[in-house]
C-alpha cells in the first residue's frame, strides 16, 4: 500500500494550516488518554487510606461477609462453606442475601442501607455544574489552586471514602487496577482537539472529540505510556462525542454545558449530561485536566453490580450500600414522575499524551474532531438493552425504600458551612 500524506504530516509536525473536507480548521492535536480516574480529593498527608480532612475516619471499613451473609435461611455452617477459600462460592451466591433470597445485585433495596462513610471535607475537584455557588464544595484545581465555590461532585461526596478509590492522585488502588488494564491493552481512549483560529492557545471555535481506539497503548522504556503513536478510531456508539469548546491561554474549556459521551473507567458508555471540560496542554504536548457532568445513577450502579461479589471483594464496597448512597446523593435531572433525581454530579481526572489519531480504516489521518462523527446517540446501547436487563429488571418500588432515603434529596450544602 502506498500512501502519501504530505499535508497531514505537516500538520502533525505543527506545520501549515490546511483545509480538509468542508470543515475549516487551523490546528489539531491528538491525544491518547494515559490515566483516567474519578476526580477525588485526598485530604490526608500520607498513605492511601489514612484519616484526613476528606474522610476523618479514614476509608470505609471492609465488608464483614459473615455478617452480610447471615440471613434467616443460612446457618453459620452454610456461611462457613460459602467463605471456605478452598471451595469458593462467593461469586455464585454472594448476592443472595435478601430476606426472601433476593439477589441484592439486582434488587439492592431488598436489604436495609448498610451505610457508607461519606466525605465530610469541603474541597473537591470538578465543576460548578448548576452555576450556583451557594451549593457544593469549595474548588481545588489540578495544581492545588483554590478559591472558586459551588463545585458539584456529589459522587465524590457519596463514595469518596471508599477504599477502592481513595488515595492521592494516581494512587488509588482501583484506579491503578483499571489504568493498568488500559495500559495492558484492555481498552484505549483517544481525543482529538481542533480549532479554527490562528493561535491554538486562544481560539473561540474549538472541537474536542472523544473516541475509543482499536490500537493498544504502547508502554515506553520507563513503563509509561509512549507518546506519538498512531491510533485508529474504533467507532463505538455511545462511547464517543464531539463537544464545542474554546481555548484561553492554552486552557481548553467548555463555554456552555455540553453532553459528553465517552467510555467510563469501568467499562460502560458514560453519558455526562450538562457537562464541562477543562484541559491544560503543557509545553511537552501532554494534557491534564477534568471532564465532569451529571451521570445517570442507574448506569453507575449497573457498572458495579455487574461485578457482583468479585467487585464487593476487590473494591471493598457493599453493593446495596453503593445503591443507597447513589440514591441519597443524586442531585441532577429531577424526574417528576418518580419524584427522584436521576443523575449525580461527578468529575474525572484525565492525563493524556500526544498521539496521532487516524480514521477507523487507517486510510487517513484525522485532522479535525468533526471529520469523524460516529453514532453519538446518547442511549444507543441502552436502547439496545446493553447491561439493563440483567441487573435492574424492575424499578424499585417506593414502598420498600428505607425511610432514611430522601426521594428528593436537597443538593449538598457546602460542607464548610
Amino acid at each position: 500500500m502506498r500512501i502519501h500524506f504530505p499535508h497531514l504530516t505537516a500538520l502533525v509536525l505543527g506545520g501549515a494550516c490546511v483545509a480538509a473536507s468542508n470543515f475549516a480548521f487551523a490546528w489539531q492535536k491528538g491525544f491518547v488518554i494515559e490515566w483516567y480516574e474519578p476526580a477525588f480529593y485526598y485530604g490526608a498527608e500520607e498513605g492511601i487510606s489514612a484519616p484526613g480532612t476528606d474522610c476523618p475516619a479514614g476509608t470505609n471499613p471492609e465488608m464483614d461477609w459473615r455478617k452480610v451473609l447471615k440471613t434467616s435461611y443460612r446457618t453459620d455452617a452454610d456461611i462457613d462453606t460459602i467463605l471456605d477459600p478452598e471451595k469458593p462460592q462467593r461469586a455464585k451466591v454472594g448476592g443472595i442475601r435478601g430476606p426472601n433470597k433476593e439477589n441484592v445485585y439486582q434488587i439492592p433495596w431488598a436489604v436495609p442501607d448498610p451505610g457508607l462513610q461519606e466525605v465530610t471535607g469541603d474541597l473537591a475537584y470538578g465543576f460548578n455544574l448548576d452555576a450556583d455557588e451557594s451549593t457544593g464544595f469549595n474548588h481545588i484545581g489540578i495544581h492545588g489552586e483554590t478559591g472558586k465555590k459551588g463545585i458539584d461532585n456529589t459522587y465524590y461526596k457519596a463514595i469518596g471514602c471508599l477504599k477502592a478509590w481513595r488515595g492521592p492522585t494516581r494512587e488509588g488502588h482501583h484506579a491503578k487496577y483499571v489504568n493498568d488494564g488500559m495500559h495492558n491493552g484492555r481498552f484505549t481512549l483517544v481525543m482529538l482537539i481542533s480549532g479554527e483560529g490562528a493561535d491554538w492557545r486562544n481560539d473561540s471555535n474549538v472541537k474536542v472529540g472523544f473516541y475509543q481506539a482499536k490500537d493498544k497503548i504502547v508502554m515506553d522504556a520507563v513503563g509509561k505510556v509512549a507518546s506519538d503513536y498512531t491510533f485508529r478510531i474504533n467507532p463505538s456508539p455511545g462511547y464517543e462525542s464531539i463537544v464545542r469548546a474554546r481555548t484561553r491561554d492554552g486552557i481548553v474549556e467548555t463555554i456552555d454545558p455540553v453532553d459528553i459521551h465517552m467510555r467510563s473507567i469501568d467499562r460502560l458508555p458514560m453519558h455526562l449530561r450538562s457537562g464541562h471540560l477543562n484541559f491544560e496542554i503543557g509545553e511537552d504536548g501532554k494534557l491534564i485536566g477534568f471532564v465532569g457532568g451529571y451521570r445517570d445513577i442507574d448506569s453507575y450502579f449497573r457498572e458495579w453490580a455487574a461485578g457482583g461479589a468479585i467487585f464487593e471483594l476487590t473494591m471493598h464496597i457493599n453493593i446495596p450500600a453503593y445503591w443507597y448512597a447513589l440514591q441519597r446523593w443524586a442531585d441532577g435531572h429531577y424526574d417528576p414522575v418518580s419524584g427522584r433525581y436521576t443523575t449525580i454530579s461527578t468529575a474525572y481526572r484525565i492525563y493524556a499524551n500526544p498521539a496521532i489519531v487516524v480514521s477507523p480504516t487507517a486510510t487517513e489521518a484525522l485532522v479535525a474532531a468533526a471529520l469523524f462523527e460516529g453514532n453519538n446517540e446518547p442511549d444507543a446501547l441502552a436502547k439496545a438493552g446493553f447491561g439493563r436487563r440483567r441487573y435492574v429488571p424492575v424499578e424499585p418500588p417506593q414502598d420498600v425504600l428505607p425511610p432514611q432515603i430522601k426521594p428528593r434529596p436537597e443538593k449538598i450544602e457546602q460542607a464548610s458551612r
Partner: protein
Amino acid sequence: MFFSNNRVSRKTLSSSGLVKSLASVAVTNVLIVLPIFAAVNSHAASSSESLAISKEQVIVATRRITETQYRNSIAAIFGNDIEINGLFEPEQRLELLLALGSSDLSISSAGFNQYFNMARGVASHFVNSENREHYFSCVPSNAKAADEKCASEVLSKYGKALFRRPLTEAELAPRLELANAGATQAKDFYRGMELAMIGLLSAPEFLFRLEVAEPDPENPDAYRLDGYTKAARLSHLFWDVSPDAELLRAAASGELHTEKGVKKQVKRLLKSPNLEAGTRAFFSDMLHLDRYATVTKDAQLYPKFSQTVANSAKEQTLKTVVHQLIENDGDYRDLLTMRTTFMNRPLAAVYKIPFLAEDGWTEYTFPKDSEQSGLLTQISLAGVFSHPGKSSPTLRGVGINEIFLCSPTPTPPANVDFSIINDTNNPNLKTSRLRLEAHAEDPACSGCHRMIDPLGMALERFDALAQPRLYENGELIDVTVNFLGTSFTGSRGLGEVLYENERVHSCLVRNVYAYGVGRAPTSKERNGFIKEQTAEFAKKGFRFSYLLNQIATSEKFFEVPESEIVAERLRARNVNLVAGDL
C-alpha cells in the same frame, strides 16, 4: 619476479608448508576445545591431511562464514523449518567491512561450543523420524545396524552442499567409519548418521570458506582460483549463501573458468529472488547495521527506544535499500536523498508521523518540505551514530565518512578534554553545535573535527533517536554548513552534496569489490580497477545490479591475491612461514 599478470607464480606458494599450517590453524583451533567434538570428529578431521587440498593446490584465504551465511546455508540445504539457536562469534570490522574482518577471524573455544550445539540441533532434526524420509534418499537395509552404502550416499550429498565442493575419499572415509561405529554401538543407523552429520556441520571446511588456488593449465607458472572457490565467491556475494547445485555443477564442469560460464551464472544469480538476501547482507555490513546489537539510549530521555524500535529501524533501512536497488533497480545515490521509506507503528511514533496501515509495514513518503533525506536521517545513521543521551555531530560525521566516503577516522587521542561537549546544561552553549565549536577551538582537536563535524552538524535537527526537532535547549538549531569550501544547509543539503560526490560512488564500488573478494583493494587497484569500475557504474546510472554484474564478471574478481597479501594474513595468524613457502 614473483608475479605473472593476475596470477601468483607457483613458485611463490608451495602446498607443503602453507596448507598444513592453515589447516592446523583451523583444525586445532576447534579441536582443542571440546572433547566431545574430538570424539565425533576424531577420524574425520584430526589432521591437516583431512583438508581436501591436493599437493598442487594452495589455500589463499580462509574466511569464517557469518551468522547470516550460516543461517542461510542451513536453510538452503536443510529447509527453513530448522530452528537455529545459539550465539555466534562476534565479528570484526576491518578496513571498514566485517567481510574483511572475517578473513582474519578464528573460532574461540566458547564459540565452537556454540557451533557444536547448533550442529547437534541441525543433525537431530536431520535424523528425526518425522524428517528423515525427506532428507534421506535411501533407506538402510536394517535400521538397527550400519549401512555403509546408504550412509555414503547421504553423507556425500550433504557433505558436498556443506563443504561447497565434493568430499574427497579422505574426507568421506572417516565420517563413514564414524557413522558405522555409531550405528553399531547404538544399534541405530540414524544415530550413527547423526554423529557423522554433527561432524560435517562442525568441520572447519563448513565454518570457514577455504579459498583454494590451483595451477592454471593455461599458464603453468601461475595460479587461478579453483572452480568451487569461484562458485562460493559468487554465491556469497549475490545470495549470501553456500553455492547451490547449479553453481557446484558449473564449478565441476569448468564453466566458471570461462567468461561465458561466469556471465551465465551471474545472470542467473541476479535474476533470483535470493538476490535480496545478498543485498541485505552486503548493506548490513557496509552500513554498520551490526551496531544495533550494542546501541543503547537513555531511557529517561528517549523512552520510545526499545529493542522493538531497534529491530524495526534496522529492517526499515534494509527495506529501503532493497526497494530502491532491487525492486526499483534505482539509482544508488537516491538512497541519500529519497523521501520514500517503510514504516511500522513503533517507527512512525519515533518519526512522529501517522501510521496509516492496519498492521505490519507500509510504504511511506515524507512530504517534500520535510528534512528527511534518505538513509542519512534514518535511525540507522542519525540514531545509531549518536550518544545514548544526546546527538553527536562528530559520531554522525565519522559514520558518514566511513560508510559513504570510505574514509576511516583515526581514534581520538587518549587525553582529550570532553568537558565542554558533555556539559549540556551550559547556558551559553545550548546546542551541540556551539559546544563542539568551542571544543574544536583546541588546536589538538580542530584538525580532525574540521573534517568530521560539518557533515554531522547538518543532521542536528534530528535528536539522538532521529526524532525531528527544531530546537535544542530552547535554541533554534543552526544547520548551515561549510565543508571544505562547499556550503549547504541541513540534512537535505547534505544529501544532495553526497549525491554528487564521486567519492561516494567509488566507495560503494570499493566496498562491493572488497566484500566479494575478502580483501581491501591495494592502492594500485584503487587508482586503476576501482576508478574504472566507478566510471562504468556511473555510465549505467549508478544501478547496483549493474555494479554487481560488472564486478563479478571482471577478471579481478577471481584474481589470486598477491603473495604479500597472503603472507600478511599468515603473519596475522601467527603462522610461521618456512623459507621456501613464499
